[in-house]
């Protein structure tokens, strides 16, 4: 037995190795935003084995998670986008946006048309207003799916832009349609006060983000809530006032170790991950036999309508003289379009933002969760078309 083997066999060494492996596994889960699907899976099992206890837990907690906690998630996303689109940021060049914007428009049109067509065909008019759910793209899921299939590909920034443009559009549709108990006047005044204070903090060169969050963010949240806007988006107008540094890398990638830039999102990333776990847990639990027309409509729209819409729109853009992103051919684009059919997190959020507790939400939730199949389909398409890691 060598000295190395003897040391490796020592219980303390094994203990440290196990801890190290567990830490790496946890970091992997956190980095890839996997806590949300894990939470949703727990919720799904719980709801289908002990429904009453699940809903007794989930319903009172849902408000705090969906309407307060998720504000941090959207602040983080906004922060990443603001930094990435600053001069020197990875997504600064507007030339990069052009084809992606076409693709986003095509994806929205394709999924909305498919959804509304199916729901109209079934005469379930109550579902008509929920079409934005069918358009949502889970940016993180799509990003990591494509990163696994074709690492370092030009498809990654392209799909980020596509996802951001699509979801920003969805957010603007969902935000004013949030079901609330009552609306009150005075929200606009509060929001102006929040923005004024944020501007003042910035002028005073306050670099800590807590004053922005606790003072301006709270005022903005109350303003949104009073006006009947979805308060999860309350930090979005505050975030641009925070101190920023341009990001050189893709939105989801970490800065290198020698990067002196201080990104505030690192400070609240852990809190956001816990919120995402809870978000999946309190919203993902749905009784599976609650599937209905809305479920099939979402699946059809996401898995068929959106990829077709994206491909048609990009085809039109290329015909009009625009260029595909570098190193992306039509085969890669098909894989990107199929991968983008995963709506998961954003679809789930749009569903809870548009629809209250009840059977309509249940059938839409099942549809939103089922769009996770888009990732598997993307792998299938890549294999079929010999794209990325399946080349040769």
């Amino acid at each position, binding site marked *: 037995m060598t000295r190395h083997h003897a040391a490796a066999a020592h219980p303390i060494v094994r203990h440290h190795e196990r801890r190290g492996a567990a830490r790496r596994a946890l970091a992997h889960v956190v980095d890839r935003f996997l806590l949300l699907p894990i939470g949703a899976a727990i919720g799904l099992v719980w709801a289908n084995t002990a429904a009453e206890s699940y809903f007794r837990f989930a319903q009172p907690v849902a408000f705090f998670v969906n309407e307060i906690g998720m504000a941090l998630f959207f602040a983080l996303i906004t922060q990443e986008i603001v930094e990435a689109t600053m001069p020197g940021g990875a997504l600064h060049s507007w030339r990069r946006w052009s084809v992606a914007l076409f693709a986003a428009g095509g994806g929205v049109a394709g999924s909305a048309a498919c959804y509304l067509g199916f729901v109209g065909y079934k*005469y379930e008019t109550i579902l008509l207003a929920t079409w934005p759910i069918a358009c949502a793209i889970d940016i993180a899921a799509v990003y990591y799916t494509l990163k696994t299939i074709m690492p370092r590909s030009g498809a990654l920034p392209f799909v980020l832009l596509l996802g951001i443009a699509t979801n920003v559009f969805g957010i603007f549709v969902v935000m004013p349609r949030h*079901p*609330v108990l009552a609306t009150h006047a005075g929200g606009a005044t509060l929001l102006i006060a929040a923005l004024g204070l944020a501007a003042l903090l910035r002028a005073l060169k306050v670099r800590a983000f807590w004053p922005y969050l606790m003072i301006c963010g709270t005022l903005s949240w109350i303003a949104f809530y009073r006006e009947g806007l979805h308060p999860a988006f309350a930090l979005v107008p505050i975030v641009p006032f925070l101190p920023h540094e341009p990001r050189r890398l893709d939105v989801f990638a970490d800065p290198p170790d020698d990067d002196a830039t201080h990104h505030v999102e690192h400070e609240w990333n852990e809190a956001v991950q816990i919120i995402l776990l809870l978000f999946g847990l309190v919203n993902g639990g749905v009784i599976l*036999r609650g599937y209905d027309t809305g479920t099939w409509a979402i699946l059809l729209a996401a898995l068929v309508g959106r990829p077709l819409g994206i491909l048609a729109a990009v085809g039109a853009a290329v015909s009009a003289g625009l260029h595909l992103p570098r190193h992306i051919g039509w085969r890669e684009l098909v894989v990107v379009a199929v991968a983008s059919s995963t709506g998961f997190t954003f679809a789930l959020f749009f569903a809870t933002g548009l*629809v209250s*507790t009840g059977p309509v*939400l249940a059938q839409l939730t099942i549809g939103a969760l089922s769009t996770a199949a888009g990732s598997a389909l993307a792998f299938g398409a890549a294999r079929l078309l010999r794209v990325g890691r399946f080349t040769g």
Partner: protein
Amino acid sequence: MTKNRCAAGRLLTVLVALASFAVLRPAAQSVPLPSQPDSLKFAVIGDSGTGDQAQYDVGQQMANARARFPFEMVIMLGDNMYGRQQPQDFVDKFERPYATLLGAGVVFFASLGNHDNQNNRFYKNFNMGGERYYTYAKKNVRFFVLDSNQMDPKQRGWLDDALKQSQEDWKICYFHHPLYSDAGRHGSDVALRVSLEPLLTKYGVNVVLSGHDHVYERTRPQKGITYFVAGSSGELRKGDLKPSGATAAYFDQDQAFMLVEIGGDGLFFEAVARSGTVVDSGVIRRQGKT
């Protein structure tokens, strides 16, 4: 030959009787409707608006029943209209099947199901006053009609206030999706139950009626409330019900509707099949008065 025919007829009768026994199990104690002159009498239909022959048969049977039990109103548990909902569909799927009742001045009070266009709340014969959820009182009974498709905070807040203000002896709530159901396709909507049940028990609601599952079912009282599923007045999902310990009676072999009479502290009910056979009946005594 005649003898053989008689024997076959008797055998058939016995088989039908046995089948009925199996279908109606667990059988309820037969309690006839008292049909008192000053009581509130109404009928209940759910998932009715197919426009099929079965709906017309049920409509005819309701008209027949009215001759012996002169109900003045009908409550509709949602899915009052399936498929296309153009003006002609209101004729084919509502006005013609219930023409006799409408002609006799019977008033319908509808709730919305998942197949109903939300704009149907403006249809005058549904008497919803343009509202998704509303309340009305008849004699000593207050009805609370909900839109169970989604229980938004506004509707839940409204129900809380309306129940609090109610002074009537009887409180009856009806909406489309059942809080308790042993049917196989949909079953109990537990999320809705967790949201609504605390209000229903807090304010002493006596009876809750729903549809959605295309069967008839009556539960044993759950936290003091008797729940009915009456979602087979047009649509039918034959053999869909798997009775549990909460099931008091059920019928899932043919279309059905209900007749209800409330007088004093008793709510008498009958479930009537499309054939006219009474498949369940009983009386519910008002909570605290049993």
